[in-house]
């Protein structure tokens, strides 16, 4: 298929752009109270922010199934847990998303297979928008990473929102 590549690229040309990339000419949204904005956006996305430590949340929920907390020691060979506790690198106030980057320390599949996800987030690590989010992440070190905004959801049957389409049906963000 080397042929296909050279043919396509011959059509398109491969000289580096002489002009710089287009820059934004606007000031992105900012929030006086990023934590409250984050909480509102997360709720709209079907998730929940609780202003307490993740360990307290876990005690209060008292889940039946297995729990893995990736902030502590765990067995990466273990079956996917019912409750997965993750540490978020940052949160985004405009959309309630958190950045999760496993860096292959634990299997990627734990994230979509867990029934419930608890996320520990440092309120100081909440940025306003996706512009700041991508500026803050070391994007060249990603292997697999995901912005999670609330639980898995679908509205494919007559526009009715159902949580837990495939992945976690519950996503709660607590404080670190």
């Amino acid at each position: 298929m080397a042929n296909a590549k050279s043919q396509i690229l011959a059509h398109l040309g491969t000289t580096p752009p002489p002009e710089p990339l287009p820059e934004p000419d606007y000031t992105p949204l900012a929030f006086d109270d990023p934590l409250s904005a984050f909480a509102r956006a997360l709720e709209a996305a079907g998730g929940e922010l609780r202003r307490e430590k993740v360990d307290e949340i876990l005690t209060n929920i008292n889940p039946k199934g297995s729990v893995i907390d990736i902030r502590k020691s765990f067995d990466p060979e273990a079956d996917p847990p019912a409750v997965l506790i993750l540490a978020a690198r940052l949160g985004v106030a405009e959309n309630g998303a958190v950045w999760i980057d496993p860096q292959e320390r634990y299997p990627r599949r734990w994230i979509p297979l867990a029934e419930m996800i608890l996320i520990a987030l440092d309120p100081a690590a909440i940025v306003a928008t996706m512009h700041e989010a991508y500026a803050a992440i070391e994007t060249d070190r990603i292997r697999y990473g995901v912005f999670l905004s609330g639980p898995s959801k679908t509205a494919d049957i007559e526009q009715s929102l159902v949580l837990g389409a495939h992945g976690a049906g519950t996503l709660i963000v607590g404080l670190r």
Partner: protein
Amino acid sequence: MIDHAGAAAEFLGDRTRAKRHDEALWFVRQKRDAAAGSLPEWEALRSHAQRIKEHTLAHLGYYLERFETNARANGIEVYWARDAAECNAIVERLLAEEGARSIVKSKSMLTEECGLNPYLEARGYEVTDTDLGERIIQLAGDRPSHIVLPAIHLSKEEVGTVFHETMGTPEGLSDPEALTRAARRDLRGRFLCADAAITGVNFALAEEGGIVVCTNEGNADLGCAIAPLHIACMGIEKVIPSARELGVFTRLLARSATGQAITAYTSHFHAPRPGGRLAVVIVDNGRSERLRNESELLRCIRCGACMNTCPVYRRSGGHSYGSVTPGPVGSALRASADPADAGSLAFACTLCGSCDAVCPVRIPLHERLRIAREAALAAPTYAPKRRILKLAAWVVRDPRRLEWTAWLWRLADRILPGWILERLGGPWSRERTFPRPAPRRFSEMMEERNG
């Protein structure tokens, strides 16, 4: 040949369905408006997205090559396909190499365009669509009618019947929550034993050498995290310079599509998982040709906003367009690629420009459709229309000719029975009343006024 009006008439035959369809999409449009309104910089953001896409498309070869180099450095395999046939053959070869038989697939408009599912199924592979909307369509043996909401044309009762017949859910079950649970259970089993996962690509990052897939269900993440082989198929136009630009598009995509601030999952695949393979197939399939004179259309990020807002789409249903991508952008793509076959799509448009007003990358859709109309009019099918338009032009070019025609029209109105007049407009007057001539001429009235 695509007959949009004919297919739309069929859709409109079921008034209840048509009304529900129209209202459901208008509701999505309103959610989009609310989401857009929540950002003061929305309009500037759209312009920025447009400029980024224009820049990337102007230097597409450069960015694709950078993407390939950086992706390879991350351990991703990269393949190139000139057309649908090459794309399908590459995918099959990769599957054969792994000895894969069962495949879980997340949504990809490109593979839909390439006809990958039927291609693989004909060769004995078991392909499971895992996006709920697409799964419904697959089980129903139907076709998607919208690029974001594939099953928008079906009622929950119809979905219930499909699930009853194919998955054995209780007869008459139509609760969306219960039906979703049933599909989840069924699909979970398929995910766990899949040999390969196929996904589309929303954005490919040239600088980082990674691909980004946006879903609400998490089905892409689930498939790729379990199966040993992940194949991602992308059109050449999906590449953007870097994650920095992604900040712009992730702000626009879901807000435009469904009114969400962002999709539930914005998943970055920048390297295969340990012990697994990740292969990206870069597909041209006519795109580099389009780049020459309608590059605007390649800016599309497949949000579906132009469909939700389109008064014709909402009232005619996605199937009436007879092609993979319906609605304004679908018509523009199809009608220009094949004016002889798809000319009617150029007329499935009121030229209201509502699509232009919502498109997150500011594609001048109604202008493209107007141009497509010119091309379509040249086709033999439109010979009568062409003649009528020519005649009309000839009439209005001369004041006296116009006067006589108006006089004739007034005379006809007096002496001919109403039913003849009502049919004069042909199909146009089926749902509209032909305008009655004014009792007095405008120039007469003016003369009188000016004394």
